[in-house]
């Protein structure tokens, strides 16, 4: 591409053999999944190593899902929902916020780095924020290294 367009630029491909974390991303149907689609419609390029699981509301994300993801080898889990007060289901995202906060404490108590779990708000019009969130979380988890549970 000729034009100077940071958002559309080719991402720095992971160097050969470089370790890439496995990321699971839960997206609510109304805001974050739509935001992820918008990132696509806008052709915003980003790392490939995340897999989206759609739920109707971020509040459907049972702590069990997060624990299962880590137990099965995920290196990081992102939960994305509507911005506060924008929840399609009125206040589901507030419950998500409480649950994730609690779950992070729990993870820490068990000696698991809570930064592997992150909650972020991405609206239907925030394709760019979706891209940024993925990129930044990928960097965070890269620094944390592989999920210790997978090394045993």
């Amino acid at each position, binding site marked *: 591409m000729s*034009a100077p367009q940071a958002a559309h630029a080719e991402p720095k491909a992971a160097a050969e053999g470089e370790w890439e974390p496995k990321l699971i991303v839960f997206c609510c149907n109304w805001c974050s999944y739509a935001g992820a689609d918008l990132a696509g419609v806008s052709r915003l390029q980003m790392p490939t190593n995340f897999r989206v699981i759609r739920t109707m509301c971020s509040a459907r994300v049972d702590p069990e899902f997060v624990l299962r993801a880590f137990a099965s*080898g995920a290196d990081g889990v992102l939960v994305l929902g509507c911005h506060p007060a924008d929840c399609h289901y009125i206040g589901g995202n507030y419950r998500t916020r409480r649950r994730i906060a609690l779950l992070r404490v729990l993870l820490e108590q068990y000696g698991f780095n809570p930064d592997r779990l992150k909650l972020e708000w991405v609206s239907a019009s925030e394709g760019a924020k979706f891209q940024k969130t993925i990129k930044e979380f990928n960097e965070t988890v890269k620094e944390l290294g592989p999920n210790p549970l997978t090394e045993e």
Partner: protein
Amino acid sequence: MSEKTGSVLVVGGGIAGVQTALDLAESGFKVYLAERKPSIGGVMAQLDKTFPTNDCSMCILSPKLVEAARHPMISMMTLTEVMAVEGEAGDFTVTMKKHPRYVREDRCVGCGLCAEKCPSKAPSEYEVGMVNRKAIFVPYAQAVPMKYSIDANKCLWLTKQRCGNCKKVCPADAVDYEQKEVIEKLNVGSVVVAPGFEAFDPRVKREYGYGDFKNVVTSLEFERILSATGPYQGHVVRPTDHKTPKKIAFIQCVGSRDEKVGNPYCSSVCCMYALKQANIAQEHTSGLESHIFFMDIRAFGKEFEDYRARAETEYGIKMYRGTRVASVDEDPETKDLTLRYSVGTDISEQKFDMVILSVGLEPPASAKDLSDRLGIKLNPYGFCQTGIYSPLETTRPGIYVSGAFSSPKDIPTTVAEASGAASKAGKHVYENRIQIDEVVKEIPETDVKGQEPRIGVFVCDCGINIRGTVDVPSVVEYAKTLPNVVFAEENKYTCSADSQELIKKKIKEHNLNRVVVASCTPRTHEALFQSTIKEAGLNMYLFEMANIRDQCSWIHMHEPEKATAKSKDLVRMAVAKSRFLEPLTKSKLGVTHSAIVVGGGLAGMTSAMDITAQGFHVDLIERSNDLGGRLAKLYTAEDGVSPRKYMNDLIERVRSNDKITVYMNSELEDVAGFVGNYKVKVKTPEGQKELDTGAIVVAVGGQEYTPKEYMYGKEKNVITANELEEKLSHGALNAKKVAFIQCVGSRNKEVPYCSRVCCSKALKNAIEIKKKSPSTEVFIFHKDIRSYGFRELLYKQAGELGVKFVRFPENKDPELSKVGEHLQLVADDVVLGEKIMFRPDLLVLSTGTRPNPDNEHLAKMVKVPLSKDGYFLEAHMKLRPVDFATNGVYLAGIAHWPKFIDETIAQASGAASRAMTIISKEFLETQGIIAAVNDMVCDGCGVCEPVCEYRAITIVGSDAKDPSKLKAVVNEGLCMGCGTCVAACPSGALEQKGFKTNQILAQIDASLEGGAK
């Protein structure tokens, strides 16, 4: 044939006609959808992408075409023309002529063997003549209906009684050379005419060399060049040598704003489509440079100005403002092209590899004949005659118009109008409304209980949208290896009509009991595939999608291998979930047959009148002391009628309408319930009222910007445009020198968007001043004059009356100072390249429009989003312009975006029509995806009850003998299916259907298997 159903004829099967047909059908009317061509889809089907979202045109259109084709209330009549309309509104007899297809529609399966063997070729209309089709053909690969037709002028058998190959090879015995024209009479209550437009033929503009120089193409040809399904598979190449161009030029206003060719109007869409084509071309071709030559850039729509800014700053597209290209010359050796154009007062030359002519929109060639047959009048430019206050009405009562036939316009405006025309047409037939289940026979559902999953996987190329990045064949092969997958295949477009037939066929052939489609996003396409599998007898919830386009190929365009691996993972996850899918049932809920309209301005009152015209009650909520909104403050006549006068009449009609209850000084306080059954609390001066309603129309308008600039408020001779109208209504101005400054509070750092109406409003008032006092000097200081459509004629008229125009730079506003008693205005004139000084007696500020500052409060109440500029954000900017993502809530007027009177009226009728698709129904079906309680596990702990935002859960006694035994019960009508309670349930007794715990865990596990290579 005596039918009791109310029927409507829709003429034209483009996006306008299709939307009108769908709205009418969903409101309980029988629709005849007549299209002259062999298939529906119109020009939109030819487009590659649409501005300003760059959505793939076919991808968003295709589901609508398929829906229209399969709708039980719509009879599609292709190759059919209207010959005559007799009778009057409510009772027309229409004579239709069906031209022979020479292929029996009931037999043709669209296999294409005939075309393969056909020896006769003709230029493809769909590809604008750039490639050939056969004499037996479908217009395009995803055509609806997917039925071949024979071009009688080219067919060897029909012209010379030779060949006959197609008949010999057709496996379905569908070819029938004996077909004749059929004349049919229909009885309908009303007619909507939407024949669309034709692109200007630039051959008459000899100076641009189109026709002689092959590297000069029209914008419609370029649209096909950009398309993955086009002549060069989406590669931007020159027609002469198929080499990739390095430098391309777009010439604007070819056949628009041009008296010499008889088109003095602006075609409204060319600026935006040129920007879009330039952007897309650069995305397709690395190193490509695009240059656009134009007079004014007319980026007046929602998010358009952002799009323009991005084209310049991000894509680096070179813009030549105020430039007319004089000529194009070709180098006979290299076939390169030289443009001669004016820069200020000089002439410049520049070489390009390819030139695109942004051709304007003209009325269809059939317009004259069609108007004669329908008995309607055309305007001086050959478009359908309408009025500012009656944008959807033709000159014959009972016949309505939508889309580009009444004036050149973009897709969202067309779609809003199309819904509006449906509302108008419906009022003649509403007494004969029928319910859809009276005509649909239930398709018996296959019982899959206890069956081992048999999964079919369909992987879409989406042209090159997916296939360009992802190795689709390897994804298909991989899918075949997954557990329970018994069938997998690749489709060019899984969403096309023929693919739906194919999916149904494969379900039968392979006894599939689960279907997975790997393509785009479930947000737009899940419903289509669900109804397809339903038609094949499968429960619609036995379906799952893998989003390998929006969330894979498009965001990993430069990493094909990883994108392919990811696609395999996504397919594996979808398959894993689908193995656990279960059939779900829906229940039926009654509907409240009335609507609430919020806002008593032009939009709100128009919506209310339209809804009552079909017999429904409306509660109209206005928070101020007056009906009329902003329009009541406008005086200067359009179409010979002052807006204020029209508004006073409308207020009178609303006040005397016994189906409208008006609540003045009232506001919404709380909105509970759901589509078809809202419960709304309204704060009124008489205390709180509780209203039941089926649908809500948001028409709360916007505000005029109050300027801080140009000494406004300090100098009495500095006024706003609205204040000027009020002044002018009292007679001539006491001013000899008047200046207008445009874009006050628009297109600046604080508010980057264009307020759309201010240019034309300034022109209208400048003309009024000149008419009242010809000797008054009038100057308009502007960045661009954005008088689109027929309002361009105001620009012309103003110029003829001696109004002077000064174009100032985008980043340098005029400076106002005071010299003694005089106001003094100094601006850089970019055309003359010098400073202009003017001392006006009166300075008029063309102030922009702002959203209401408290929109957010209402938006939250009705659970809909706002755009980043603070206007209400519709469900889809192109094809759902008056809907919200929340069902049962609709949008009209300036609450959506600044717009003109005619546009507001059309959109308000559109919102009314959409609301009536809900409130006209006897019942709506509940969603299948809701919470369910497993009574065996639930111990009635009650954790779920307060968690539910919809109060859908109650704790009740579960054992008549033992009052201490409790359980949770879910109210299916209230449950919205968010799943919040499910995640809260400590015992695992609650489940969310369609998103059950085992289904999601299967997805998680599958995503981490990493099996795909």
